[in-house]
């Protein structure tokens, strides 16, 4: 039986549509425990490929015959080998094209709302939990928290027939490499960064300050910068068209930002609390919160988007409901999850201090984002 290659986009569709899929992940156990393709509707089995070099007979009976079967590995080679062995045993089987490396890079654009003469899109990076945004209005576009897959954004804008005018990062990212600077260089757009996060960057940028207002389209939408420190000292949120709150890594759907990724947990706890418990409280509860990450599949809605009303988060997000300041301090500074892979090198890359090649960049971004703490 012939082995088929399944594209990351096909896997993404199965995740969003909650379809069945049996994943045989043949990476080593540590890699699998650290990070895998997450879906509530999938079933999983992890057997490292090097345990299967002599044959797949031993695992045959553990693989259900009534489910679609996908073999997954880091880059593709091993999964293809194992898939071929399974096919020789008469199984109908696919392998993930490009492996987890490609899965990590896959972006799925989802429309989250209409804007005057335009739309707001969320780019969901299912494999890593990163969320980027493109606001389109009257032939112009702004991009927020772009990932390094810059072609996706540039081609999307081309297909929409809009010109990218502004590119923003809510903060200096520590979990993934920003595509902001590259998009700005390729399109002539302005690249905005919060100056307090950008003190060490080695390139030109436009400094984002509290209350700064950027307009897209002739008469259309306003993007208001709201200084909201805590995850990093420069962290800035944006309110688009008075309806959408792009909260960066400050507030997520089911968790809140962690203050330690730039090494300053104790210093920034107060800022984080001030932002979440005071500054955000002053905003309209009807704002739709659009964060820069999600951590678990429960945060992804049925339409594949990640969004929730601010008022709902004030009710349901535990990180917004810790009365006691000391308890809050303990939550965000003690027993934190491990820091994202290569977070120091990723910060250096985003500052322009080092310029790794594409293989190295992919290597640095392997694994989940781990930007949140959950109460």
């Amino acid at each position: 039986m012939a082995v088929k290659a399944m594209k990351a986009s096909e896997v993404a569709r199965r995740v969003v549509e909650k379809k069945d899929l049996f994943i045989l992940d043949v990476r080593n156990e540590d890699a699998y425990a650290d990070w895998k393709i997450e879906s509530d509707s999938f079933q999983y089995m992890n057997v490292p490929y090097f345990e299967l070099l002599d044959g797949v007979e031993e695992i045959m009976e553990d693989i259900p015959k009534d489910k679609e079967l996908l073999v997954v590995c880091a880059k593709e080679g091993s999964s293809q080998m194992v898939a071929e062995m399974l096919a020789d045993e008469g199984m109908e089987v696919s392998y993930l094209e490009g492996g987890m490396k490609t899965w990590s890079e896959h972006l799925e654009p989802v429309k989250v709302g209409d804007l005057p003469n335009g739309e707001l899109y969320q780019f969901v990076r299912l494999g890593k939990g990163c969320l980027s945004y493109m606001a389109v209005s009257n032939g112009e576009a702004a991009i927020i928290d772009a990932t390094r897959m810059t072609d996706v954004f540039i081609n999307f804008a081309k297909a929409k027939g809009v010109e990218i005018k502004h590119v923003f990062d809510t903060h200096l990212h520590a979990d993934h490499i920003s595509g902001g600077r590259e998009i700005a260089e390729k399109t002539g757009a302005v690249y905005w960064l919060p100056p307090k996060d950008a003190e060490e960057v080695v390139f030109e940028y436009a400094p984002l300050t509290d209350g700064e207002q950027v307009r897209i389209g002739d008469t259309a939408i306003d993007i208001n910068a709201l200084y909201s420190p805590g995850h990093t000292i420069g962290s800035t949120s944006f309110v688009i068209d008075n309806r959408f709150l792009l909260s960066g890594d400050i507030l997520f759907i089911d968790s809140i930002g962690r203050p330690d990724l730039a090494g300053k947990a104790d210093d920034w706890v107060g800022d984080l609390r001030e932002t979440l418990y005071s500054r955000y409280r002053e905003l309209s509860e009807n704002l739709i919160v659009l964060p820069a990450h999600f951590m678990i599949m429960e945060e992804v809605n049925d339409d594949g988007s990640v969004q929730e009303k601010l008022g709902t988060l004030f009710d349901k997000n535990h990180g917004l409901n810790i009365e006691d300041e000391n308890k809050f301090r303990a939550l965000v500074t003690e027993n934190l999850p491990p820091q994202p892979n290569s977070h120091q090198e990723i910060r250096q890359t985003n500052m322009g201090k080092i310029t790794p090649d594409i293989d190295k960049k992919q290597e640095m971004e392997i694994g989940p984002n781990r930007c949140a703490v959950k109460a």
Partner: protein
Amino acid sequence: MNADKVLDAKGMACPMPIVKTKKAMNDIESGQVLEIHATDQGAKADLAAWSKSGGHELVDQSEDDGVLKFWIKKK
């Protein structure tokens, strides 16, 4: 470190470094050491895990100018 056999797996992508290592291990005796050269970064974690699961000992490893070297003592 003195090796009894050297395997050049440079330029090979996963799973070939492990496939070749497994074959090369068949050619040496218990207690002898196989030295492997590879450039696939994934080999680091995989060779360590493979050695462990097979009961072999990963005696040493190094990285020099993009070339990974491993010394594995056969069970």
